[in-house]
């Protein structure tokens, strides 16, 4: 059974129940939730432990690989998990198939665009010339 397989043997025979896909989405949401448990805790703990939250201190923190790399992972995992979660909410509550597709597409664009913007900003901080 592959990770994405979500049909039971009986369901396959009867040709009912699961659409035989969606398992990947379900699993992605949970694997990333475990990643965010670590990365989110790291993020909050780091902000708490920084001596100050001014621009210079944060820049110094994010210029070091020990700050920049987990932060990049946090951004990627957070945007992907948000997209996974919003899709579940949209699929649950939006009845019209056209509206559902439109809203899922909108959130997809927002997540990719927002994630790209956040990563670009992070790269600029991490790789920029020291002020």
């Amino acid at each position, binding site marked *: 059974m592959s990770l994405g397989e979500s049909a039971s043997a009986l369901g396959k025979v009867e040709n009912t129940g699961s659409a035989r896909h969606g398992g990947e989405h379900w699993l992605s949401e*949970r694997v990333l*939730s475990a990643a965010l*448990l670590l990365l989110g805790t790291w993020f909050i703990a780091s902000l708490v432990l920084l001596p100050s939250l001014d621009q210079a201190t944060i*820049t110094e923190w994010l210029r070091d690989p020990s700050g920049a790399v987990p932060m990049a992972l946090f951004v990627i995992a957070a945007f992907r998990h*948000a997209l996974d979660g919003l899709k579940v909410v949209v699929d649950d509550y939006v009845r019209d198939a056209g509206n559902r597709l439109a809203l899922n597409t909108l959130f997809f664009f927002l997540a990719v665009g927002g994630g790209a913007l956040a990563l670009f900003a992070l790269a600029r*901080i991490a790789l920029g010339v020291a002020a």
Partner: protein
Amino acid sequence: MAAERPRPLSPHLTIWKWGPAMLVSILHRITGVGLSILGLAVLTWWLVAISGDAEGYAKFAQAASHPIGWVVIIGLTWAFFQHLLSGVRHLVMDSGHGMELGVNKSSAILTILGSVFLTAALWAYLLGVAQ
């Protein structure tokens, strides 16, 4: 395939007696949507502000220290802790554990107590350090 008459709907929110498990389930969705949209918008704005000039960061800091900014940021930290704790509870339940009525109710109440405690502790610490 046009529906000839409306399909029967399962009883919805208004008909159930409210309990901790139901409340936490709903909170998990609301905090998830809030973190996905508002939380990631703030995170992205924060990264972009740090990557830019001092003026841009001052604008972010000004917005964050506005009364509405305080409500948003403290609200987001509570949403983060609530979603994190009920997310862990969901992972346990995904594994088939914690479904018994008593355990399920207690774990739901614990996520709420935990998120309020962690939010209060975090901000008590941060505001204590700032002074």
